[in-house]
């Protein structure tokens, strides 16, 4: 889940499907490892963890618990 930034250092993490934001696990400024859970989405009674694809700092967190995200919506930026 997510689209790699062009320079390889900035990764935009985007929603793969329409879903509700169940839990926000990370905070802006946090150092995360690759595969760290950033946010847990919920869709159709299933929990879908959204993972960081690369290690780095969460420089932007674009969602809050209870939000509804559409396919392609920005969830977070890790750089």
């Amino acid at each position: 889940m997510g689209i790699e930034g062009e320079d390889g250092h900035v990764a935009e993490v985007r929603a793969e499907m329409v879903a509700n934001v169940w839990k926000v696990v990370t905070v802006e400024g946090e150092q995360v490892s690759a595969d760290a859970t950033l946010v847990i989405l919920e869709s159709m009674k299933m929990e879908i963890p959204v993972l960081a694809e690369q290690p780095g700092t969460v420089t932007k967190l674009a969602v809050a618990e209870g939000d509804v995200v559409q396919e392609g919506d920005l969830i977070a930026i890790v750089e």
Partner: protein
Amino acid sequence: MIESLLVANRGEIARRVLATARRMGIRTVAVYSEADADLPFAREADEAVLIGPPPPARSYLDQAAILDAARGTGAQAIHPGYGFLSENAGFARQAEAAGLIWVGPPPAAIEQMGDKISARNMMAAAGVPVAAGTPEPVTDAASAVAAAAVIGYPVMVKAAAGGGGIGMSAAADDAELRAAFETARSRAERFFASPDILLERYVTAARHVEVQILGLASGRVLALGERDCSVQRRHQKVAEETPSPGVTPELRGRLQAAAARAGQVVGYRGAGTVEFLLDVDSGEVMFLEMNTRLQVEHPITELVTGIDLVEQQLRIAAGADVSFQPEDVQYRGHALELRVYAEDPRRFLPSPGTITEWAEPAGPGIRVDAGYAAGNQVTPFYDPLLAKLCVHGTDRDQALRRARDAVASFRIAGLKTNLPFHADLLDSGVFSGGDYDTSVVSRLRP
């Protein structure tokens, strides 16, 4: 008889219950959330009442809003479908206190079977076989490890109040068990508002076989054949068939007797399902749980018996006789149900979206219980079930052939569905040969 009925559910099951009620001349009331205003069930009822916003907690689980809708429309009875409030004894009691006929078992039976630990204990005491497991809730990871030492690995970890496979996982050693325990615990608190966890022996090669029961107004409990529900992903059923290719006539007799006994023990009334695990290697059967409501896969029992189970539910709730002679029930042919889910057919991830095309298969032996139509939006708020494609044949081979044709001609566009998975399942040697167990989906999608 019942003259007016409110269906406290949505999608295909609301539509299916409404259809039988209409055929019986009963005035029908649907309740719907803001997300479901355009769905067929809300449009086909005589009256439809908006009960709240899309999240289930604010609509289909809002007991006060549903009881208000019943009062406002003068509904005489309430049918809960499956899921949502169907196994909520408190809601059943409130409905009865409000003077409504509850189309379901007595609230006490719901309560007794709602907790998997007390259900297991009750069944064991009544001589119904259960798997080795914990007779009391397991409260922490250390006690789980201690219990597993007695039961023996692998073990299954479950939420006592759970359902739908949520929070359930198998563990093969202490480390896996600790992780499984924590997962089950957090899921149990979140989804079922009860932290109670139980452990059971995990049967490695198992079939999941259940028996349809019908508790009559007279107190007698009938067993109406079995359904094989071994085709599962994430512990949730994807396809079912009756009769089960893994059940011999001798085993069927044992299953039916155990299921009827289970129903009698709790004073069951109406339609219910007793689930068993069948150990493929030893031939042993073990009680899993009782579902105190209409089951999703009930249509395949209807196809082979010719009995409308919803009609029987409504008759029994009204204190009337069922429409058939219990001694004369005949089982004809073979039936399959394929659950059509809004999910990608490889990883089974949810795929909400707008349905741009919807064309159902038709023909001899084909029945489609659909919750949606072209133009409808499938939202992330509810489960992914779009429709149940049910097929009846004079034998299993004919049912399989009809199912393959039906899957190929079912046209749904605008979102991903698992129809391609069903095509693969029906073509696979392991399923078509009949000799499969609960690992069949992971074998087809390693």
